[in-house]
Every structure is written in structure tokens, then in C-alpha cells.
């Protein structure tokens, strides 16, 4: 389970890091895939990892997995929406800057997750 968490963390960090340069330049298809993935699941995945929203592998505990995925996606979409909306109302519209903010949020959550004591696991019923 810890290995799976690490893989997800590395993948999320890679997407967040790659999105920064790609928000300025790069092939359209690659930009759409990476930035789309970041906006769809980046900050939320990092948040769920931070919350240790992945219970131990047991039949009872798998109840948290759909909720974890749902929160990862919904939080990412909500963050993307709120960042974009804040830029519009503040008259500071800059889509690449918005993507950079999302990347920073994602990396910040991942950084906090690294610092967190490993025993802080959620208990699932």
C-alpha cells in the first residue's frame, strides 16, 4: 500500500511539475493531456494523499476508495474553477498563471504529506 501511495505521489508531482512549462509552450495534445489531468485530479489527489484517505487493504476498508477518488476529482475541479473565477473577478486573467497556482497547491500538499507522521491513518468502517 505504501508503494502504491508513493507511485501516486510521484505521478501527481510529475504532472504538477510538467504542467508549469506546458502552460506556456508545447504541443497542443500534450498540453491538453497534462494540464487537463492536473485540473481534473491534481490538487485533489494530493489532498487525499495528505489526508491519508486510503485505508488499509481490507474488505471493510475499501469503502473509502470510491470516496477518495470522488473527493480527488471534485476538489480538483472546484479548485480549478475557483482559481479561474478569482482571476476573472480580480481582472488578473492569465490561464498559465492559474495553472501554476494549481501546480503549487498540488506540490504544497504533497510536501506536507511527506512531513506528516506516517501513523496518521484514517480509520474506515
Amino acid at each position, binding site marked *: 500500500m505504501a508503494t502504491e501511495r508513493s507511485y501516486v505521489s510521484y505521478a501527481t508531482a510529475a504532472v504538477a511539475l510538467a504542467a508549469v512549462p*506546458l*502552460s506556456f509552450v508545447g504541443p*497542443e495534445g500534450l*498540453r*491538453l493531456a497534462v*494540464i*487537463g489531468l492536473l*485540473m481534473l485530479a491534481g490538487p485533489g489527489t494530493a*489532498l487525499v494523499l*495528505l*489526508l*491519508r*484517505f486510503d*485505508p488499509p*487493504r*481490507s*474488505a*471493510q476498508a*475499501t*469503502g*473509502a*476508495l*470510491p*470516496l477518495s*477518488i*470522488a*473527493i480527488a*476529482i*471534485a*476538489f480538483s*475541479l*472546484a*479548485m*480549478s*474553477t*475557483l*482559481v*479561474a*473565477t478569482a*482571476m*476573472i*473577478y480580480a*481582472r488578473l*486573467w*492569465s*490561464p*498559465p498563471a*492559474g*495553472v501554476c497556482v494549481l501546480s503549487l497547491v498540488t506540490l504544497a500538499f504533497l510536501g506536507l504529506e511527506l512531513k506528516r507522521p506516517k501513523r*496518521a491513518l*484514517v*480509520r*474506515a*468502517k
Partner: protein
Amino acid sequence: MTHETATSLPVRTAHRHEAQAHAHAHVGGAKPPTHRNLGLTPSWHIGALAAAAAAALALGVWSMTQVDPLRIGGAGLIGALPPAYFVALALSLAGFVASLSLRRLVPALLTWQLIVTVVLLDGADPIIHGLPRLEASFRHMGIADTISQSGQLDPTLDAYFNWPGFFNLLGMLSGATGAKDLFGIATWAPVGINILLLAPLLALARRLTANPRQAWAAVWIFYLASWIGQDYLSPQAYSFVLLLTLIACLLSVFGGWAWPTERTKFSRWLARNVSKLDSSVPRYGAVEPLRADTAVLVVVCALLLLAMTASHQLSPFAVIPILAVLLLTGRLRLRFLPVLAVVLPMGWLLFAASTFLEGHFGQLLGSLGDIGANSLGALSTRVSGSDAHVFVVYTRMAEVALVWILAVAGAIVGYRRKAPWLAAAAAALAPLVLIPLQPYGGELLLRLYLFSLPFAVCLAVLPLMSENTAGLSLRRALGLLLMGAVLATATVVSRYGNDGMESFNDDEIAVVNRLYSTAPTGAVLIEAVRNTPWRYQHYADYDYRALVAAEPIPNAAPLSCDAVNQIAHKAGAYLIVTESQKEAAELRGSTPIGDLQRFTATCATSPGWTKVYENAGGVIFHIEGVSNGN
């Protein structure tokens, strides 16, 4: 994913385990797994079911590629689908029920089966048409394009710019990726959004049903009965994902009474009656995070509410009654959240959407309290149009009735079995309190069905499934399959019943592109019937008009050239008439039968009218105005 429930029982201990399952069922508990009761389902069973689903997917996709869109008639797509499609659909349905009947649930297998079902039921747009469904999809792309390019909102333009959250999101995606248009995303949106819904639906169903087998079945029935087609690239679809996640998170993390049940006379009375009606305390799917994490999740829930509020007019108002009933049934312990759910949309309406409020105050409150007009009135106007279309409308009504009958039966069964039912029933009914507010453009009942469906299906599975967590009996499995087949077939009719008018082709897009390359910026562009795949670019650059809405109009008058001449009188105009406009007019009864052909043939010879372009998808006319010398 891991194997889900302890349902593979060694033969010698099966009775004991089943007895335990029965004993625990009324509290919604699943038996904990042990090394002894896992692994009795042979791997080849799982492999065979996965392969059958893959075969259903391949056959279904192939059969959809064989559809000739020209054969799609008044009853929609069902008349044009080859028999192989229905074989694939049947295989998919049987595969899911067989997977659900395994003694050991395999979440990965069930997920795969559901994805196949989603592609078969919701994949017609990308596979058959290759273009986004509904003219609204094109408008939504245009709004995102406008925001992406200008970085500004013009709240006077239309309501979308007063609730711009979702379009800001799309605008940021478009602006940061350099994507010239979002056609691909919009075309695949129905499949993508339904797949995104899977996790929140499952998380929600786990908290509203007695065991995981019922939860998976509820999600399956949701997909089979979700016909209203609000899963296109739209604020409604986006908000629905957030709404379901919000409710699932609240039920999973913040369940329980919001106040001590012994505090007052009312709280005692409430707790006693809730307990009398539904004494089950479902624990499956509940999580108990640490205190700090719980605080973070409260913030997450508030942010979900805020994002929903900024994006959609209706969804935040649908959340309010759902949260209220969860609070009153002891399933939500955050007292302040329903208050926040009221404050946010009201505050947004008063401050951020004040432009819309000033211009539409009468429209917003004009139907307040008129339950008849907002419900049956809006419904009766839909029972019109061609005979084939009326058949489609009746199919939709029958499907809704079937789901609600099953839900009511489920509530009764749940009460008798002492299985969880009250929260699902209350949440399914809660959105109906919006009926007295306003008709929402005649679509309120459709939207309410959408909001109620995730809860109603948790009840609908109760009569179809036993409490036994160890597999399905053959009789139950056949009953479930039969019900699934009825719902899926009805959904093919009801979801795609308007396919002729809701889908478009490349010729029509070519006509629209030619219109934009011909008409100068700021020109008046007229569509004969409001059903044109346009405004995906230049959303704010032209003066868009329509002669008639694509709505049923009793004793509709024929279209006249004078109506166009009057609009074009001053500075000229461009008129576009497309095949989908004709389909819409015929289907909905917006104009007399054959009137659009007569209209274009007659007006083409009128003075000042010039045919600019024509192909199989439609025709463009330029009408000269006074300043142009006519």
C-alpha cells in the same frame, strides 16, 4: 482495487456465515474478511466475464459505427440501430448481473462492466455522430472561448455570464493549453462525465444501502435509468459531480445527529420517530478521519458548495433541501452547512448575479407558488409534436414512473426488513420542494428527476435484491436482469428520442463556418428555428436572433419572409436554415409540417434575398437592408 466483500464462503461454514450476515444486515454491516472466506471464485470466471464485457464493447462500438444517421427518424436513434447493438447491450447487462452474482465481489470487474455499459448507452455522440450533442454544447464552447480570449465577463449578455464558474474553468483549460476549440472534449463529454460520476455514486450508494452488492446494483440502475441527457459539456453536469461528491462526503464523514437527541422535546420526538421508521445504522463506507483531517474536509465541503454556486443557478438550490432532510434524519451532524448552502447562492444572486436579477426579477418570481404550471403545466406542453415524438415522450414518462414505483416499493421493503431506507427516501423527495419556486424554463421536472435519481435507485434495488450478502439467487438475478433490460431499452428510446434534432453533422458545421467567414463582425445573424450548432466562436461578436424557438407551439403560424425583412430592414442580416432546424421544427411542432422548406423556397426569390452558400447541411441567405440600397 481489492476484492470487496466477504462473500465467498466455505461450504461447511456457509450457513453460519449467512446467519451472521442476516444478523448484521439490519445495521448495514458487512462481514469482515478472513483468509478462509476469500478466493473461492475461480479466476477463469472473472476472466471470462471481463472478456464477455470486452466482446460486448467491441460489438457495441462496431454496431454503432454501422448506423446511418440519415435513417434516424422521429422516434430517434432506436430505429437506426442494428440488431447487433442490442445483442451487445444484452451481453453487457447479463455480464454485470453475472459479476454481481459472484460470491466474491470483484470491484475491478464490476467497474469494467459499468464502463462498458456507459460507453454503450452514452457513446452515441462520439461514435455515431462524431460531434457534440445539443446546440447548447456549442454555445458553452463559445462562452469558454470568449472568456479565454478576453478574460472578462459581460453579465448583460446572458445568464451564463452571471454564473461563469464552469466556463472560467473551460476558459482556463483552453487558454493554458492553446487548444483552438474544445470539440473533442465536448463530443466525449457524456461518456467522460458518466465515468466521473462512478466514484461519487458508489460512495453515496454505500452509505445509503445495506451492503456493497446493493450499492453496485444501485449505481448500475442509475446508469440504466439516467436518460435526461444532462451529461453533456454543461454547468449542470459539472455541478452534479460536485453535488454527489459533497453528499457522499457528508454521509461518510459527518454522519450522525447534529444535536444531542435528548436536549429538547422536539429533538427527542424527532429521534424517536426516525428510529421507529428506520432503526438501521449503516456503517459500511463510513470513515472516521483524525480531528485535523475532519476540519480540512469541512473546508473541502464548503469549497465544493462555493464552486457549485459560482457555476450553476439550480444545483445549489437543490442541495439545500437535501442537506435539510439529512440533518433532520440524523445523517448530517454539521448544523451550519445547510445554512451556508442557503447563504452562498442567495449571496451570489444578490451580488455577483445582480445584473441578471435586475433584468429577470419578474421572471424569477412570476411563477412562485404556481405548482400546477411549474409541474404538470410544463409536462403537458411536452406531450406534443409528431406521433413518433409523442411515443418518445410517453416512454420517458413511463420510465420515470417505473423508477419511482420501484423506489416506493423499496422504501416499503426497507421499512419491513429494517434495512436502511429513510435517508435515501427523504433525499429523493427533497428536491421536489423546488417545484413551487419556478419552472426553470420548463425543464424543472427533468432536473429534479436527475437530482432524485441517485437516491431513488438506492431504494429501487431493495425489492430486487435480498439482504443476503453472499451472492444473488438465480431468481433474483433474473429479476434484476429483466428490470435492467427494460430500463436500458427504455433509455435508448428516451435518451436518444430527439436525436434527429439534437445531433449535428459536418455539413451543418461547414455551413456555420461559412457564415462566420462571410458575415462581417457585428452583423445580424438569424436562425429560422433555435437549433443551430453555432456560437462556438464569436459568441459576443454578432447579433444573434431566432425566428421561433424549438418548442411546441400550438397552432403554430407559418414563417414569413416579412419577419426576416423586418429584422434586416436597417442594416441587413444573414439567415441560416439547417437540417437540424427542420428536424426540430417537425419534431416539436414549432412550425406547421413542411413549413421550413416552403419558407426557404418562397423567400429565396424575394427581392433583396441572395443565396450565399448551400450544402446538404443547410443554406445561408443574405438579406439586404436599407443602408445596403434596398
